[in-house]
């Protein structure tokens, strides 16, 4: 009898979205509450891993046709790039700036370069974790 994963897959559909949202939340709110790029990225990666767990690599690849190595590379580039950006502005490497802006809908909002930096971290973490897990799963057995 073939395995029928209907229960798992159905529940996963809800749960993946909860986890994804939670991951983005952790990433963005890390500046003031627990969280941040790493943990956000890890949680997002867990969501993707959950998808792989409940389905298989090939079907997920159709839905998420990213090369996760490049996602990670992009993340690293973003993270290092924000640091490097400060050189162009003539301030010490890795200078982060933050400011409060009045935005139409959001009202008083804090915008900081740390967020860009952390976005890089998120992408890198997601990219790396998924790359590792996919590579290990795809490896032929001995």
């Amino acid at each position, binding site marked *: 009898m073939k395995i029928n994963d209907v229960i798992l897959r159905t529940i996963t559909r809800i749960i993946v979205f909860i986890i994804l949202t939670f991951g983005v939340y952790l990433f963005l709110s890390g500046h003031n509450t627990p969280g941040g790029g790493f943990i956000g990225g890890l949680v997002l990666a867990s969501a993707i891993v959950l998808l792989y767990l409940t389905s298989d690599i090939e079907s997920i690849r159709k839905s998420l046709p990213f090369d996760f190595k490049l996602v990670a*590379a992009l993340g690293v*580039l973003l993270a290092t*790039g924000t640091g490097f950006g400060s*050189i162009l502005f003539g301030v*010490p*490497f890795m200078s982060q700036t933050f400011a409060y802006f009045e935005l139409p809908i959001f009202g008083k909002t804090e915008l900081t370069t740390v967020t860009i930096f952390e976005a890089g971290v998120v992408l890198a973490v997601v990219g790396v974790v998924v790359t590792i897990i996919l590579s290990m799963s795809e490896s032929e057995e001995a």
Partner: protein
Amino acid sequence: MNNLVVLPLIIPIMVGVILVFLRPYIRLQRVISLLTMIGVSGLSIYMLNVIQTDGIIRLDFGGWKPPFGILFVGDSFAVLLVLTASIVTAVCLIYAFSSIGEKHEKMFFYPFVLFLIAGVNGSFLTGDLFNLFVCFELMLLASYALVTLGGEKVQLRESIKYVVINVLASWFFLVALAYLYGTLGTLNMAHISERVAEAGQDPLLTTISIVFLLVFSLKAGLLLFFWLPGSYSVPPTAVAALFGALLTKVGIYALFRMFTLIFYHEPSITHQLIGIMAGVTIILGCMGALAYKDVRLIVSYNVVIAVGFILIGLAIATPTAIEGSIYYIIHDMIAKALLFLLAGAMIKMTGVTKFDQMSGLIRNSPIFGWMFFIVTCSLAGIPPLSGFVGKILVGQSAIEAGSYVLLALAFFSSIVVLYSLLRIFLNAIFGETIISKEDEVPLKKGLLIPVVLLGFGTISLGLGAEALADYVSNAAYTLTNPAVYIEAVLGGDE
């Protein structure tokens, strides 16, 4: 603030990441990676001169003043090493172009090398102890990737040892850091130095310093070198050359920094211990160099001998001694890279690894053979090649300090080095050629050029030692006067 000093780290990293995107374009990768290393070398020369005129360069990342933020500190010692490392890397890259193979090149060989050198440079430049840990890890991860690159059976087998032992070393590093933070409450090296001085380096701090000694000795191959011969003899030649030239030097650098800047108050304990370890290292290294017929192993044990030699300078720790060590480090980086490249080329030409199974290689490639002879002489400290200046200074300081045992070991080791390499030279390079005219494959130009470049390096470093003299003496001055470093870091704005 001087953003210059971060470039030797950040440029290789960013270029490395960009090369990941350029994965299919091998030629482009080669050009970019080589240009990067040349650029970093040029930059380091510029920095050396800036230091010479304006003093130590410092960069507080994010503008956070020490001791709160992380900072890079470029003094002559660090930048000299950055310079040498970058040059050696550039040369090894050229060697890799025609030896490493397209399969490796497509598997991120160049990014890994660039990350490795970034970690190495970062370790030299950082002024923060925890950041040093992170830079070490950067370097190590890249080295893990490189040492396994290719996936040969022996490679993977030795890699396990290499990785596990380094993981353990990193663990000890963290333990030591934890203890140090627990006692001193700070991570900035200059600040640590200040606080150690304030506390008078009591027994507990000395205990902790010995834990650091353990950590860096593992990296440097000082006494704790058993991981080295295996893991340096399995990766592709270009990688082995990089390892032989760079990796132990980072540990050596850290030992010098640690025991001149921070834990210099109890030399009768720490420095004496370093001296004993250096002596034993030399003895064991010499034995290793004589024990095997496998050229890669002989070459690896030569690395060990050099480590002991260099650390004698630290054990004595007078300005002359330190100066000698610095000369010797620079010499050794170049000569060892050359030696590893040559050993690799020998194995490639003959298909065997033991020197008694090779013969008459000089007929196949005279330049190659003579380069081997030059590096033999250079490593044995035969003047006017690069090894001898450091040897004289270390010897001089040992005499002044009355460390006759170390003196004897140091100088005796150069004879063993000579013998160990002469054996290879006479058996493998000289002698009746075993390769028939038909099978004779002349070494590719791409392999000869780097070899010649390094050979030229070791000659000109000896003949042109004066060109380095100002930088080296400045480096030694900074190392032997911790106050200079501390003032540059903590003495307010530059």
